């Protein structure tokens, strides 16, 4: 897993988010404030610009640059939350990057966002997609499967996790203001987390 792969990860995520922007915003309109697609699109465009300008030399640098850019440019909750995932991941990632090392760094990123957002599995947030993805990566490492197979499994776990947010009642973020009315809608943060994981599996192939 080299530096270019990580740059490509964010470029592909930016492309996917642009493509799915209206769907993310629609999901957010149902239980939030209808800006998730727009904000993430803006943030990832900035991330790609920052990566092109700074020419990072390691995967860790790609991740911290992306994280810092998201924190400094996106605003709202998703900026600091996604930003913290990638900053922490970058801090924890060792060079050269192995699947086991990436899995451990990913776990550190998920722990960081759980702490910052005070969210746990089942609260109907991005954690519901990220934590299963992290667990899938760890299992893949244990089972000794290929990088591609591991990332595919992580993407599937994220997608299943996002789908599982539909019947949940939100306990964090703006959706929690709706109480029971938040039930029956997919969480937009979990949906965008799926795009990140799908993009990673795509560019690894």
């Amino acid at each position, binding site marked *: 897993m080299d530096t270019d792969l990580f740059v490509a990860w964010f470029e592909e995520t930016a492309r996917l988010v642009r493509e799915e922007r209206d769907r993310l915003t629609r999901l957010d*309109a149902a239980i939030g*404030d209808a*800006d998730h697609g727009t904000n993430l699109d803006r943030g990832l465009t900035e991330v790609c610009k920052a990566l092109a300008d700074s020419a990072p030399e390691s995967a860790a640098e790609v991740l911290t640059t992306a994280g810092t850019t998201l*924190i400094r440019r996106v605003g709202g*909750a998703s900026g600091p939350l996604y930003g913290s995932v990638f900053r922490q991941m970058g801090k924890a990632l060792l060079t050269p990057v192995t699947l086991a090392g990436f899995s451990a760094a990913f776990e550190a990123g998920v722990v960081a966002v759980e702490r910052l957002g005070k969210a746990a599995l089942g609260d109907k947030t991005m954690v519901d997609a990220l934590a299963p993805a992290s667990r899938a990566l760890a299992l893949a490492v244990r089972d000794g499967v290929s990088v591609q197979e591991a990332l595919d499994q992580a993407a599937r776990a994220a997608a299943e996790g996002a789908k599982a947010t539909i019947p949940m009642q939100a*306990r*964090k*973020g703006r959706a929690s203001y709706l109480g029971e009315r938040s039930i029956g809608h997919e969480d937009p943060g979990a949906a965008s987390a799926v795009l990140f994981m799908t993009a990673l599996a795509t560019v690894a192939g």
Partner: protein
Amino acid sequence: MKKLINTAESVVEDALNGMAAAHPSLRIRDHVVYRAQGPRRGKVGLVSGGGSGHEPLHVGFVGHGMLDAACAGEIFTSPVPDPIIEATLGVDGGAGVLHIVKNYTGDVLNFEMAAELVEGVEVASVLVDDDVAVQDSLYTAGRRGTGATLFVEKIAGALAEEGAPLARVAAVAQEVDERSRSFGIALTSCTTPSAGKPTFDLPETEVELGIGIHGEPGRARVPLAPARELAEVAMEAVHRDQPLRGDLLVMVNGMGGTPLMELYVVFAEVAAFIKGKGARVTRSLVGNYVTSLDMQGFSVSVCLLDDALTRLWDAPVETPALRWGR
């Protein structure tokens, strides 16, 4: 939906340029609105901010007796840490800076990060969480900050203007938040310039109870009723949470798309309700102060006053949106 904008992307910037052109008392740089004359030595600085689309909150409350700076985020999106740090450094007169933060996950996270990163300035924070439509429990992000933000900014601003130290300014801000409750009702959704269509669909015959200020849906939807009944629903919710008593500061706030005439219709009902509970409206405000773009509807905010708070409310203020006594 028709909008008076140039482009959806530039609307925040364009509006700030208009504020700068209209109000020479302000200086605007990088989406932060400052008092033009800069910080006063020895005065606690007050910084607030949040997503745009709630005007005049917060940018219209910068000036003598109220805020020293306000950070304007994208529409309904909290500002990022950098401008909050800039604002904090820019208003410090050596006595520290109070951050006034509405309780939304994004605002809380970004102001927290800014407070951690800023160096050489003592920072205190107060969270405004007055909206009784949200249960304050482990199962929500906590109550939202809405109309009481204006009360906090005005009263803490008056105390800061008198030269009180940071701890006292923070304490009075906290006290005003604790004494304040709000509840909002929407007749329509709002339309963000980037979406171009209403955030949620609300039939002609229904209203949304317990709305926030970002076009997020409320707790329940009920048939449209006369203003008297809607005012009662809002006031019952406020009264149930904090019984009305003594002298009250009462604001009937428009959400941006409701005529002032209708707000006065609501105020009459609110005042009658309060009288019925044996309390008194001693200070009041009616108008569009904490808005949600073009949403139709109102929120009512009530603060239990005492003599000290009444005096601070009456103190001179000179901002684009609130001015008296000077």
